[in-house]
């Protein structure tokens, strides 16, 4: 009846809704950009206030330290290789710390995950408390636990092992429980139908399904834990971290350089190895999966 109105009503309505949505989206974007800018401003002003040196001076002297230690390493000439060999044993200690505590954390996380999976445990109280326990284990930074245990047990690798194990158990437990909850329940039902007990159902119904995923998470964690055990060495837990901290105090440039070099090489090697094995475990062998594998958009998802 109206010749100017060429668009039907319902289309017009959709158009309006779309416009409204777009406006809302734009507002949200501006709002979040505004918040980010505000926080940045606050952050920079706080940092400028409480930093010992200023930003500008820091930038200009950024290369001083690396240049210093590298030139010292260069001057030491051929004996630099001797230094690298000298520090291999402490490196192995650090790796041992990481591997051992990852294993303990893996076992702990497995237990946590089974007792906090809704499809395996029917008692909601148990699930609730196991989850809270897991949260607590995860929330404590390794350093805090390690420092407390260092005070209680004296300087040794043990506090670091305990600290990393506790944190790893909490962190892995959370990831594991998600994997366990997403399990296919048909296999459990099958086992139940032949009269398998609960522990049998878990062993033969759940574990084979999730084991590759669990292992891949654990490898990821191992990589993080190697870094963590180095850092804990810094506060007195032994291993290569402690050697590095001593060398820094004594200002042995060549030694610092050697330690950093083997540290970087090790971390990179473990990174690649874990990537490779994760690729094998998850099946997509040719491409590494990156950190949060489960939320990466795969083509098949």
């Amino acid at each position: 009846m109206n010749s100017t109105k060429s668009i039907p009503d319902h289309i017009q309505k959709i158009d309006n809704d779309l416009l409204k949505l777009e406006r809302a989206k734009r507002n949200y974007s501006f709002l979040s950009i505004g918040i980010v800018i505000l926080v940045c401003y606050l952050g920079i002003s706080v940092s400028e206030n409480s930093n010992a040196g200023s930003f500008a001076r820091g930038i200009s002297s950024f290369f001083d330290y690396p240049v210093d230690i590298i030139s010292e390493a260069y001057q030491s000439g051929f004996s630099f290789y001797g230094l690298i060999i000298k520090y291999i044993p402490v490196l192995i200690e650090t790796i041992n710390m990481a591997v051992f505590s990852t294993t303990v954390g893996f076992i702990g996380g497995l237990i946590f995950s089974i007792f906090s999976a809704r499809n395996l445990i029917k008692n909601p109280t148990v699930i609730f408390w196991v989850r809270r326990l897991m949260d607590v284990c995860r929330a404590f930074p390794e350093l805090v636990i390690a420092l407390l245990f260092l005070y209680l047990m004296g300087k040794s690798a043990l506090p670091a092992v305990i600290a990393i194990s506790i944190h790893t158990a909490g962190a892995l437990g959370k990831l594991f429980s998600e994997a366990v909850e997403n399990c296919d329940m048909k296999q459990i039902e099958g086992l139940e139908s032949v009269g398998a007990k609960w522990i049998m159902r878990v062993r033969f119904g759940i574990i084979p399904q999730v084991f590759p995923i669990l292992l891949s998470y654990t490898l990821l964690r191992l990589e993080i834990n190697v870094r963590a055990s180095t850092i804990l060495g810094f506060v007195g837990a032994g291993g290569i971290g402690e050697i590095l901290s001593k060398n820094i105090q004594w200002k042995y440039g060549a030694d610092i350089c050697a330690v950093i070099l083997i540290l970087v090489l090790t971390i990179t090697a473990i990174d690649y190895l874990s990537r490779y094995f994760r690729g094998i475990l998850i099946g997509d062998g040719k491409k590494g999966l990156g950190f949060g594998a489960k939320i990466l958009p795969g083509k098949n998802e």
Partner: protein
Amino acid sequence: MSDVSIPLRDRIYQDNIHVFETASKKAKQTGIIFTVVVLYFLFAFFSLGVDKIAEKWNPERASFLALDIYAHKDHFKMPWKKTENKLQITLEGNLRQEYKVTPEWAEKSDDNKWTVTFKNGGKVDAYYFPDNPLAGYAVMYDFPGVEEIFTFRINEDKRPYVEGYEDRVEELPGFIRQTKNKLEVRPSLFSRIQFTKSKIEIHRFSRGWKYFWFDNNGPLDGYSLFGALSKIFSGDRIVEEMSNAKLIWVEFTENELWQHGKAWYALLETIIMAFMGTLIAMLVGFPLAFLAAYNITPLAGVRFAVRRLFDFLRGIDFLVWSLIFLRAFGPGPFTGIFAIAFTDTGTLGKLMSEAIENTEKNQKEGVESTGANKTLQNRFGIIPQILPVFISQSLYYLESNTRGAVIIGAMGAGGIGLQFLGALQTGTDFENVAYYTVLVVSVVIAMDMFSAWLRKKLIVPFGQFG
């Protein structure tokens, strides 16, 4: 029946021989791997000294730490020489926290005698003689569960001893420890007496964190939190210079014992380190990720360079980065910010470049078909696909960087990590250690919840990742 079943079993075996062979091969492999793992585990167990866990455990320190976390102690310190001038009744032995008014549990009950009463009814009388310091002695009585009355004295060799036990030190009850120069008496968990030739020190523990809200040097000493807060609404000022609300704020933040203002500022620094570090990593890593993805950048050289840059940034751990930045910027948030930013530019960049390579090319082609140029193709064909991953990953990193910032802080960059380390290294202020731990853990949990909430808010509307 059995005659039939055996050939059947054999037949099944013959027909499916590959299944059985694979299974037994797999079982063998698993057995070998399992043995190797167990052997290594045992080796690491002993080489790391995990078996010595009981030896290394220091129960005394542990109980001291546990006690100090939930209780505070009052010190009563009385030197035998010049007693009248040198007597100190303080909180936690801190001279700045000396009681101006003698508390009711300590009284001068006689000319040369002080009596300290414990919460459980136990009493200690300390006698001093200004003319003859070595004649000072103490009597301990009325402790529940302790029938005997013990008297502590100093002998001619200036060694402390328990009267009646001079020749049979080994028969002293377990709570009295006599060493050459000191008597250490702990009749209950909440009481401790240290008796030496020069002084007697009595520690009287009580539950709770004392002066948590207001310290005892300010005008609000003695007020409870709610008592003080209710003063906001009453007209009369407690001090002339400022309003009650401001006074409460000032007294709270400048609490000498707990240093709330300082601790919270340190906490803010830590959060800023994590936030700014992650933000910089996001802003730098995101565009670089495009340069490293093969479906965006055709130049293999550029891709290779950017990828090696990512590996380099990631491989040098944030520990090493923070050492380098500590030299450049000095202790402070910049060190933490840049250490986090450098490491995470590598990780986020690598992750995002992989995400970009995993995107569907249909969307991009669709945009291309409308005549859009390269930039627009990426903007509307690629970014909407990877944005949810990018945001959720960044939020994961923000969360874990909060923990990382605490650690960098303890290594010298400042913030709550350094406060924590400082309080722990005093070896006495464990209530502060506990306070900082509570702060750290609640911030980590809050960040965790915040990022989960934001992730849910931001990601669900895209309808891709539940």
